[in-house]
């Protein structure tokens, strides 16, 4: 039956600095975005529920980090990103994307404003080189760009108990940091740690950026502080189901070089208050209206939607395809994201997912699903 996980024989697979820790914890490691990553420690569903109900820790050190500094830092960021970074105050972060010149998306990312002329961009692991080259190509005025991806570890500590656990490790008042804001300070005895009220789970919690040299100490301190809450390590499997329940896009699945941010429902991070790559065409697209839209849908018939399955209307016409799908651990029902023609995108529209030749009924649903 089984093709469990692709193992690549021709591509060099990188390791996250704490690989030995994950192996000791019994993680199943799989290649993802060029890195050998923990996909599961015990059970996807158990790990999912741990984050929804309590607190769990993801090692997402594969993510890429660039610093952009100097007089022209904001100018460069404004040119390459779709959201309006001029609105950021010190200590604030912003979800954004890098539009390409042909209507698609180079990557989605988070832009952190540390202070004036000092920004941090956090990008997807699989796109580090592509993004770097893309941004560098647009860096005509000479902003200082540094790729610090290999020096930084990132732990996402997520769940309703996360803030309580993390607060034991820092004097910074975490509860005073709003969503998409951050502080830099001492954490677990380590200086210059970024404590960011962000995440990819919709469960609350922080993302902790720490220098590689101190990463294992910080990881251990987080687990020590969380022991009384039964804190657990969480794999990429649960990360995917957690983000999907909240309707968050995954680059490479739901958005890519060919999908427009407007089609993807990312109009809220596409600000025409400034000029950026392809902004004139995207503005035209906004005014004319998009022909397809990314929607959430929930299965009515029993079945699980998967990436690339066809979506059809009641008459059997192909209206789009699934970009992400799973069984929601919270709802115990199949849920997915997919592009459909605009006329089929309204919440409540009945659509059909082609699962192994059977047209299974689903309904377009507002996200988040939970």
């Amino acid at each position: 039956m089984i093709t469990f996980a692709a193992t690549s024989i021709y591509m060099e697979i990188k390791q996250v600095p704490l690989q030995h820790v994950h192996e000791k914890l019994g993680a199943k490691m799989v290649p993802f975005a060029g890195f050998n990553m923990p996909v599961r420690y015990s059970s996807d569903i158990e790990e999912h529920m741990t984050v929804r109900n309590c607190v769990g820790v993801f090692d997402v050190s594969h993510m890429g980090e660039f610093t952009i500094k100097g007089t022209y830092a904001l100018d460069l960021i404004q040119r390459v990103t779709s959201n309006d970074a001029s609105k950021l105050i010190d200590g604030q972060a912003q979800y954004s994307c890098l539009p390409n010149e042909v209507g698609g998306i180079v990557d989605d990312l988070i832009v952190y404003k540390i202070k004036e002329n000092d920004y941090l961009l956090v990008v997807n692991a699989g796109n580090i080189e592509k993004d770097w080259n893309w941004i560098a190509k647009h860096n005509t005025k000479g902003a200082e760009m540094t790729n610090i991806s290999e020096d930084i570890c990132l732990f996402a500590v997520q769940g309703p108990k996360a803030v309580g656990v993390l607060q034991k490790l820092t004097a910074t008042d975490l509860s005073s940091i709003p969503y998409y804001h951050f502080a830099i300070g001492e954490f677990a005895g380590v200086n210059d740690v970024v404590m960011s009220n962000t995440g990819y789970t919709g469960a609350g919690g922080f993302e902790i950026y720490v220098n590689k040299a101190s990463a294992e100490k910080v990881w251990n301190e987080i687990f020590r502080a969380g022991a009384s809450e039964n804190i657990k390590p969480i794999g990429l499997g649960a990360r995917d189901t957690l983000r999907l329940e909240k309707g968050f896009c995954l680059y490479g699945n739901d958005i890519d070089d060919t999908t427009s941010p407007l089609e993807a429902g990312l109009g809220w991070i596409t600000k025409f208050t400034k000029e950026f790559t392809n902004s004139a065409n995207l503005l035209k697209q906004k005014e004319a209206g998009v022909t397809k839209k990314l929607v959430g849908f929930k299965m009515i018939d029993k079945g699980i939607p998967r990436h690339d399955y066809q979506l059809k209307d009641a008459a059997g016409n192909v209206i789009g395809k699934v970009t992400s799908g799973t069984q929601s651990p919270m709802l115990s029902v199949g849920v997915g994201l997919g592009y459909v023609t605009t006329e089929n995108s309204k919440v409540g529209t009945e659509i059909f997912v082609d699962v192994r030749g059977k047209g299974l009924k689903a309904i377009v649903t507002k996200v988040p699903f939970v």
Partner: protein
Amino acid sequence: MTIPDSLKYTKDHEWIKVEGNIATIGITDFAQGELGDIVYVDINSVGQEVGQHDVFGTVEAVKTVSDLYMPVAGKVVEFNKSLESAPEKVNSDPYGDGWMVKIELKDAAQVSALLTAAQYKELIGK
């Protein structure tokens, strides 16, 4: 991980147990562990003759979907209906309550050509 000596195995990670003319089929402990949480076992071959190596159903884990292949030719006579409400039995008891189908054997000789427990262990490197 358990790999009972009393069963026969396929390289596709199914197991088969023969009692008279009837054989019970499921997936191995190794397979369930690799797939992760099983959330749906979709079998629509009951009543059908299915050839050796042909698909008799699919198993869906949270992250993946995999076809199920017949270790030997036969007619599918029963599906383990308890998996409709409790597919996680495939994880918790792959050789017991997590069985998937029963078949009527077409050619009992095909069974003896399948992998022994020792051969299957070698295949998965245990």
